[in-house]
């Protein structure tokens, strides 16, 4: 059995540690432990004299393990590893006990903190004897990147990486790039054209010398390890499939989302009532430039419901994050296309969390949108209107404002 000769250094870190933890006491405690040959308390272990002290002690006392009770290893582990290396022993023979971030900085009571510091240091002493001498290795990494998904996220990632010098393989399942944003007319809250946005990105992606775009393609297999992956991509065109292989070092997964199937929400009547539509159905109308009912008439009353399939015990509990601003966007678009249309907006909470959102909400009010608030699990119900009613559908809401 190898004889362990451990050096323990308790850093005061000026007053950062010493103000709360009794460093001398910890050092003394360490000195009593089996295997510990040297135990010192010093003002700044990371300083040059501090490091010199470790190096000298290693050489003079033939230390083969070192414990530094000080700050977080994320701060100075490299510093002390270098010291060990300079002294001539394996750099991985040092263990740090964090008695600053996890002790003196978070506790007030000196007695309790010192007790904890002793425990942490003892743990480090016990652990350091199990350290193996490790060797640093250098592995060649492939600098190329695979981006899965050619939507706005994938394209942006590809451009950032390619502009930075990496070679990028962009794999897209559909025949064209653009993803879900290409199905949208305007963005919220500034009402910019989504098409311009997508077109600009697509042009840059297709013209970029370092991006290789594979459409109608899917990733068939991915093997290897971090930094060295082997990718197999299958491309299907005109009935015939072909495979391509290449190496990448990193993978960005930007596959986007699939919208919720609104027909699952039976009380909204999507799929049964002809003029209940989803946001993407509406975007199609907006892109075509004409808002109309299934019968081809201009609507007089438009209601927009938030949180379909979200914030609900039945479907998904989380908030979809996008529907509040999207709903306001639609309110604006309907009002500007059909000025005397009555627009109501049915929501649970108005999530106007980002830049420009609160203003967008206010402008929605100023455009005379009627806001109706319903409870999270007390959803509205859409039903067909009766023969005596002057409209096609009625929405019943338990209004909370």
């Amino acid at each position, binding site marked *: 059995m190898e004889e362990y000769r451990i050096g323990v250094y308790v850093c005061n870190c000026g007053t950062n540690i010493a103000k709360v933890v009794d460093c001398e006491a910890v050092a003394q405690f360490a000195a009593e432990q089996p295997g510990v040959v040297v135990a010192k308390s010093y003002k700044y272990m990371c300083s040059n004299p501090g490091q010199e002290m470790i190096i000298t002690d290693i050489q003079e006392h033939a230390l083969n393990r070192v414990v530094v009770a000080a700050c977080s290893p994320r701060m100075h582990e490299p510093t002390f590893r270098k010291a060990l290396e300079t002294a001539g022993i394996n750099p991985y023979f040092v263990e740090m006990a964090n008695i600053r971030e996890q002790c003196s900085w978070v506790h007030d009571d000196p007695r309790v903190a010192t007790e904890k510091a002793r425990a942490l240091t003892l743990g480090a002493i016990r652990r350091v004897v199990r350290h193996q001498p490790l060797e640093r290795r250098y592995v060649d990494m492939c600098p190329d990147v695979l981006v899965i998904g050619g939507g706005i996220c994938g394209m942006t990632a590809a451009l950032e990486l390619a502009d930075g010098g990496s070679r990028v393989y962009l794999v897209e399942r559909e025949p064209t790039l653009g993803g879900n944003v290409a199905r949208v007319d305007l963005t919220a809250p500034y009402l910019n054209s989504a098409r311009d946005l997508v077109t600009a990105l697509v042009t840059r992606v297709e013209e970029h010398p370092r991006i290789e775009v594979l459409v109608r393609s899917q990733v068939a297999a991915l093997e290897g390890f971090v930094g060295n992956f082997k990718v197999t991509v299958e491309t299907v065109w005109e009935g015939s499939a072909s495979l391509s292989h290449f190496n990448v070092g990193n993978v960005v997964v930007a596959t986007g989302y699939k919208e919720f199937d609104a027909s699952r929400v039976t009380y909204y009547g999507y799929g049964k009532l002809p003029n209940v539509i989803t946001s993407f159905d509406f975007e199609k109308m907006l892109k075509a430039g004409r808002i109309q009912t299934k019968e081809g008439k201009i609507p007089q*009353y438009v209601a927009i419901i938030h949180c379909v399939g979200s914030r609900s015990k039945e479907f998904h509990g989380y908030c979809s994050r996008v529907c509040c601003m999207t709903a306001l966007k639609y309110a604006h678009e309907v009002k500007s296309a059909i000025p005397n249309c*009555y627009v*109501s907006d049915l929501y649970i909470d*108005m999530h106007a969390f980002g830049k420009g959102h609160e203003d967008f*909400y*206010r402008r929605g*009010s*100023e*455009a*005379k*949108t*009627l*806001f*109706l608030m319903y409870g999270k699990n007390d959803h509205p119900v859409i039903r067909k209107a009766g023969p005596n009613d002057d409209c096609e559908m009625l929405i*019943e809401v338990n*209004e909370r*404002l």
Partner: protein
Amino acid sequence: MAIRVNPKLIEELEIYGAEDVQNCYHCGNCSAMCPFSEEPYILPRRAMRNLQMGLEKKLESSLDPWLCYYCGQCTESCPRGAEPGETMMSLRRWLTSRYDFTGISRLFYRSGKFELAMVIGAAILTGLAFVLWGISRGSIHNYDPPNEFLARPTIHIFDWALAGVLLVLLLSNCTRMWWFTIGRDRSIRVPWTAYLRKLYLLPLHFLTQKRYAKCERKRPWLIHLILMISYLIMLVLIMFFLREMQGGPAIDWRVHIFGYIATVGLLGTTIFALRGRFKKSEPQYAHSHETDWLFLVLLILGAFTGILQHMLHRTGLDVAANITYIVHLMIVVPMLGLEVPFSKWSHLAYRPLAQYFAAVRAEAVARVPQKARAAVATPPVVG
């Protein structure tokens, strides 16, 4: 039981002066600031919400607008600029037009030009009638009897007849107000004794407007009280002391002193109000509907021509005095005949009645068992 939302109601209220009601996002700052907002009357947010949703019947049955005195604190504290103060004012105008069964009130509020045309028309008719009658009875050179141009006893009878007609019209409107706010409310039963017990509230509020004094700023209440008392003094003098008011060259100081006080009060307060409205010096003067201007202009002209004819008579210029008297009649007859039952003046009845009805309702609600109380706290929708 579901209530149908009517989004078109706001458009109607905009004619009555409501602006930017849809801006309200129900933060509740207004009701927090309002000194009158307490259960079961949440002013002004509930009225704002009812209006946003177009709940016409609920608004029609509501006493909320009459419990507001337009201190303007709600408007000042509104972060969205939804003008709750002016919205309550527009609701008062709207209710005034609703309580009137003839429909004339509605026409007046919707078109200031129409109201002005009616006033001018009535003025011309009045003028013509009195001039013709005066010429047939007496001489324009005589202000006092004998052979005076405008005979006091007849004017006296005319005044009482006019008052009678107005009273009947006003009473019918008040009955409608009662019906909307209490009568048709099936959820409460008001014992007739409650009506008797609370009757004292009517003269109390009519004469003191003490609820108005509960606002943080006391000056509006004071100005209004002075205006109203001056007006009342003048009314009493004209209805009961006409002869003494214009009775010959001798001055009866016991009567005239009141006349002078009332004139000073009337002129002072109307000038203050007109100036305020021009300069938008207070929140309640920031918005002026056509009916607001007409009301003040008629008042000041009436007071002015009143004192002018008196002064002309005292200085011996009887022809001028008689002409001024005719002009005075041309102003006050339309003012009383049209403004009292059909326009802004009707608040003299609706305001005290609102306090009375609120107290009566409170008694009726107090008799309802605790559990069922929440459902009847405010006038609900009927049918």
